[in-house]
């Protein structure tokens, strides 16, 4: 059950969750009406037009959960943000297929979970990742993606088993490569009262601490970067400060631009999956033009899905796409 405080919304005057939305034009008056509908469980155009960027969770400074409320209502009312076959494929993606909990012999702490991104296993090499055990696969898949597809109950259905899988290894702490996993085991689990018997550590925190240990070996990169936030960072903005510290350590300049930090734009991937093609093109175009205007040389990603979605357009604009940890590795490489 979502821990949602209706009175916080009833006493709100700004309705930031809706008025700040970058994909729906909503004025304060309309927002107040729609919020009332939402907190009373009624239908609203918001439920139909939401692009599921998660940002309203961050816009709400009262700590309520407007986005979780929206997704719960979408499901309750049978509103599918994406076509049925697309939703089906995503549901199929992480069907638990075996009863047994997988055993990863020799997996000892510190341990890092790569979620469902096995293709990144080979990238977590070198000094930056020395001594880490890796776990990867559907048994560790956080399931949060179903927030995009109007199926949040699947998260709650599958998450306890995932937590059990991790807990059964006896890990006290787990570093999460994918921001979405971290946000699941912190923000989402907390909002629904799901107990998490281990300490989730964000990849940023790990990178920062490890880079500090290797500080003497860092060669500042002296490049300008644009940072692309991913949707789930909206759920846990409290760890974002690590990013700037990481950028300072490796000597890169995070360019000031319109679509960064709280005002960040979605990578476009999920907008396309929701079949809003015109919006997808517009959002990516504005985002990349903003990077060009700010003279960014690199576009830094933290999420593999964002990388997949935006890297092609970024490359065509003459900006180099790179994952954050690869950028950190560059700063530690002899060539610099």
């Amino acid at each position, binding site marked *: 059950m979502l821990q949602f405080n209706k009175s916080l919304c009833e006493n709100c005057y700004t309705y930031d969750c809706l008025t700040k939305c970058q994909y729906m034009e909503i004025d304060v008056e309309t927002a107040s009406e729609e919020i009332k509908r939402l907190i009373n469980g009624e239908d609203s155009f918001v439920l139909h037009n939401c692009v599921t960027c998660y940002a309203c969770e961050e816009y709400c400074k009262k700590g309520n959960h407007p986005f979780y409320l929206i997704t719960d209502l979408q499901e309750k009312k049978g509103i*599918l943000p*994406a*076509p*049925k*076959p*697309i939703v*089906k*494929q*995503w549901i*199929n*993606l992480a*069907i638990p*297929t075996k009863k047994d909990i997988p055993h990863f012999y020799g997996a000892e702490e510190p341990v890092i979970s790569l979620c469902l991104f096995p*293709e990144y296993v080979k990238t977590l090499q070198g000094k930056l990742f020395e001594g880490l055990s890796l776990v990867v696969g559907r048994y560790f898949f956080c399931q949060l993606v179903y927030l995009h597809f109007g199926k949040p109950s699947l998260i709650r259905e599958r998450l306890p088993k995932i937590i059990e899988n991790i807990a059964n290894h006896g890990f006290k702490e787990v570093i999460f490569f994918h921001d979405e996993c971290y946000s699941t085991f912190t923000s989402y689990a907390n909002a629904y009262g799901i107990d998490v018997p281990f300490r989730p550590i964000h990849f940023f925190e790990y990178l920062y601490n490890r880079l500090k240990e290797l500080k003497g070996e860092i060669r500042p990169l002296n490049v300008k970067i644009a940072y692309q936030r991913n949707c789930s960072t909206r759920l846990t903005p409290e760890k974002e400060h690590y990013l700037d510290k990481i950028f300072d350590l490796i000597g890169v300049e995070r360019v000031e631009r319109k679509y960064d930090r709280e005002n960040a734009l979605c990578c476009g*991937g999920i907008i*396309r*999956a929701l*079949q809003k*093609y015109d919006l997808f093109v517009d959002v990516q175009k504005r985002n990349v033009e903003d990077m060009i205007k700010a003279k960014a040389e690199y576009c830094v990603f933290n999420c593999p899905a964002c990388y*997949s*979605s935006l*890297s*092609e357009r970024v490359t*065509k604009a003459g900006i180099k796409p790179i994952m954050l940890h690869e950028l950190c590795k560059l700063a530690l490489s002899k060539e610099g």
Partner: protein
Amino acid sequence: MKEEIYKALIEIVGEEFVSNKKEELYIYSRDSGLSDPSFPDFVVMPKTVEEVQKIVQLANREKIPVVPAGASLTLSGLTIPHKRGIVLDMRRMDRILELNRRGRYVVIEAGVTQGKLQSFLEKNCPDLCHSLPEAPPSATVVGNILIHGQGNLTQSYGFNSSMVTGLEVVLPTGQICRIGSCSLSPYWFSIEPLPYLAGLFLGWFGTTGIVTKLGLKLFPKKKLRDVELFVLEDPNLLVEAIYRITHTEMAEDVTTIAQPYPLMYRGTIMIGIYITGDTEEELEFKRRIIWESLSELIKAKEGGFMALMPEMKKGLLEKPMSGLTRTADILKGGGFVYCGAIIPVEKFPDALRKLVEIAEKNDTTYAHSGRVIGRGHCMMFAFAFPFNRNDSESIKKAKKALRESYAATLEIGGVPWKPGVEEQDMILEKMDRGTVELMGRIRGLLDPNGIMNPGNWEVRL
């Protein structure tokens, strides 16, 4: 007698290019499919049309079977010498004889491989291409055309065999003849407007003569190429979706995929829509028109475009797609067979239902891939079954499933593509009697001694 034939063959092509050694004959006794093996007596690799002529004259005189072969990759045993004799491996005849850039055609010998032609064109005229099938680069171009193969331009221009501009053929009696404009002109630009004699050789699996040279249409190759995957659950809606996509005339290639593994794909059907353009703007224009054509299905939430990860996209855009065989080999047992059914697009739902039924009945799994032919005039629907080469039970299941797929193809009103000898019998059994008789007469007329690839298209009047 065999020794005399062997010597005569050496006399024609030289000792280096004839063999009667068992270890070499072994290679020609089978293909990668599940047909029973049968050894030839000789394998010969001619270099010129004159050598082919002399071999055929010898074979005709001595009434020895002759089986022309390219890379023997049909998977349905079409180059297995069922009645022994000579396998004529055409792969030494691998010259690209002419490139007519302005006329957009190329003249090649029978042994030119897909890989060779593809790289030749990339090097010599990167703005032109031929219709490339999803076959290994070692497959021959002529072999693919003679079995009515399909390629990446098939949705735009029809079967690859409809792209022929001329033929040089050695008839079973040894006579060399040319078909099309090349029969009366130095130019190989067209089969038409003469009587359509090419039909005497295309689709006959080498039973009416040996094609030694072929003129082939080339088409504009755009600088950019991209792919979209449209996903559906309801197979009935695929028919409508393909109608709409092909109606836009914006797609170069339209393919279909349905398979239970990886698990993500289970219960869904994907349409691969390939678009090309010389500029990003052209590509985007085409993409938008295709999205628009499917907007009703999207609005109804019945279908949508899948987000493609870069690696997946890379695999889909590979020409030919090497990943296709890996995908079909679901059991990772090193083998798969398929019945390529040429069916009306509207029969897709029936074919898919049959495929799933057959797989379940035979306790195996399946992979479907397909390709739209022409602007939805028909399609190739592959009933594909994997098998483990080291497991006789698995092979048995795949064989049975394959056989049932051929029967299902005929039952739903389709025509099996490149059928093996047993399946050819199934086709002839169902075929109009007048047509069967005509086929028999043509074969009898062209090949009075029945030496050409016997066992195939055997008409028993």
